């Protein structure tokens, strides 16, 4: 098992390394000039050539790409993601302020999707073909289809404008005012959780159905075990393995979805920051946000792979 963990760790570090190289190269090579990482486009257009050269020299942009990459990555490791060219402030500081908001919403959505999605899938598998299964499966199929930004807009219309149940827009820290914070979060968290709930339910249902046909489940039944024991002790543990893989993907989906949901509900999180940065062509900020998103995804996938050790003894003993 230790070998497996070490191998996975090295792999994750390697992947993060490639991510940084890709991000660095893309940001350096594609746009007109890397100097745009330092000044806005309008400033760039009004600058004289000597000024540009001076700036380039000052920030080391006239050195080789290799050296530049190491400069940048050593900065990143020290927590220096450069300065936002719009706000002239540290990108890292802005991220520190915004990431907890996105994590708060995203983790809530993730946990809810597990607590609700997996039991729905189990119920469907156990009651296969009955009316409950039919209804829940239809809902799950709609859930993986619904455009979440549209769902958000419709929720605002129904629950905030028409029924006036929840305050919409913005974010309050739970440490400031727990109830206000929670009531503001209900709609966005629900929107973010819908697709992961539905996909977890679908995956749980189909993998449980597959496991329930195995010989050892028949053995468990024929030993005279109760339904609850057969399902909870024998079927679930194997049935959940593919679901765990899927939950890794849904984390990436939630992080991506936060870009949309934070825009719909005007939540000042990481996703909203990315969209704002695109519109103001604030390249260092975009680079910082996307790098952080990718690292969060890699690390959470690592955690999920490690949780296999617990779930799947075949990995533990190999």
């Amino acid at each position, binding site marked *: 098992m230790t070998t497996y963990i070490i191998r996975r760790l090295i792999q994750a570090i390697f992947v993060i390394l490639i991510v940084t190289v890709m991000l660095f190269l893309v940001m350096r090579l594609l746009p007109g000039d890397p100097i745009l990482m330092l000044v806005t486009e309008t400033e760039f257009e009004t600058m004289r050539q000597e000024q540009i050269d001076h700036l380039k020299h000052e920030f080391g942009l006239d050195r080789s790409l290799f050296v530049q990459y190491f400069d940048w990555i050593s900065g990143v490791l020290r927590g220096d993601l450069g300065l936002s060219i719009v706000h002239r402030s540290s990108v890292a500081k802005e991220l520190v302020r915004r990431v907890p908001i996105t994590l708060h919403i995203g983790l809530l959505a993730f946990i809810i999707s597990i607590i609700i999605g997996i039991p729905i899938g189990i119920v469907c598998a156990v009651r296969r073909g009955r009316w409950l299964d039919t209804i829940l499966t239809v809902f799950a199929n709609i859930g993986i289809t619904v455009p979440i930004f549209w769902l958000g807009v419709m929720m605002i219309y129904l629950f905030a404008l028409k029924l006036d149940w929840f305050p919409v827009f913005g974010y309050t820290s739970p440490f400031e005012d727990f109830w206000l914070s929670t009531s503001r979060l209900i709609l966005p968290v629900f929107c973010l959780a819908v697709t992961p709930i539905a996909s977890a339910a679908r995956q749980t249902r189909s993998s449980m159905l597959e496991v329930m046909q195995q010989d050892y489940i028949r053995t468990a039944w024929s030993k005279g075990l109760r339904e609850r024991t057969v399902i909870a002790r024998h079927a679930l543990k194997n049935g959940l393995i593919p679901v765990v893989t899927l939950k890794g993907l849904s984390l990436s989906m939630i992080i991506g979805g936060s*870009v949309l949901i934070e825009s719909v509900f005007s939540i000042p999180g990481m996703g909203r920051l990315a969209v704002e940065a695109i519109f103001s062509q604030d390249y260092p900020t975009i680079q910082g946000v996307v790098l952080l998103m990718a690292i969060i995804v890699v690390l959470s996938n690592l955690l999920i792979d490690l949780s296999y050790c617990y779930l799947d003894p075949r990995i533990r003993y190999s």
Partner: protein
Amino acid sequence: MSETGTRQIELMEAPPHVSEFRRFFRVFLSRRIVLFGMIIIILFFITAAFAEFLAPYDPYEPDLYNALLQPSSKHLLGTDAIGRDTLSRIIFGTRNSLMVGVIALGIAVIIGMTFGLLAGYFGGWVHSLIMRFMDALMAFPMIALALIIAALLGGGLKNVMIALGIALVPGYARLMCGQVLTIKENDYILAARAGGARNIRIMLSHILPNSLPPLIVLITMMMGMTMLAEAGLSFLGIGIEAPAASWGGMVNDGYKYLMTSPILSCAPGVALMLVVFSFNMVGDGLRDALDPRLRGVL
């Protein structure tokens, strides 16, 4: 010759013989929801092809005297803030959705399959290099990747297609690689090699056709996902640019008039959902119909 001989005998001995093709259709269309999805998809294609003839009004022509009309017999879904007919814009929106879906997927399938094929076939360091690269690409949420590309190249139809195409590559590469790894262990590959076939021939005429069924399922499933992602980007304002009609952009345009004309945001979302749902259901149906384990059962 002898190989076909034994095959025929096996088939004759197998109890009632069912043609593969008929079996496929029977399983595929056995669920009503799949049939429903298939009909919606066909309607969707027809709408995209004949948008000019089907749309009651010009989707781009502003008509300020008739702005923000509620649904009526003249404008079935009302009009938007500058008086354009919502139904006509939804009808024209099918084109953009379909085009982004098809082209982005096309890019992803071609690049992803090529990399997957190479990685799976050659194994070793080629495999590690390609697959780690794909892992890294997969680490970016689809929208984040699209945001970066939009930041660098700007928004617009073409860049959305490139962005989504690149974002979808790793999925196909992984699936293809897994397929190739199992297929290349088959005896017929060994036979082809013994017969003196070159690598390229084995890859293209023996491995590729045998790996297609799961890819077709994934393509159908991802069609809906791609259209959803495009709508998301257009909603944010970095996808298809106005005045072109895109469903995501229309939801955003209507957002400002939510209190008075909720239909402006609601209708394009419903259209999008219906189409994505249909692609998912057809994908499910295809998966069941192509599943070899169900052979003979149904």
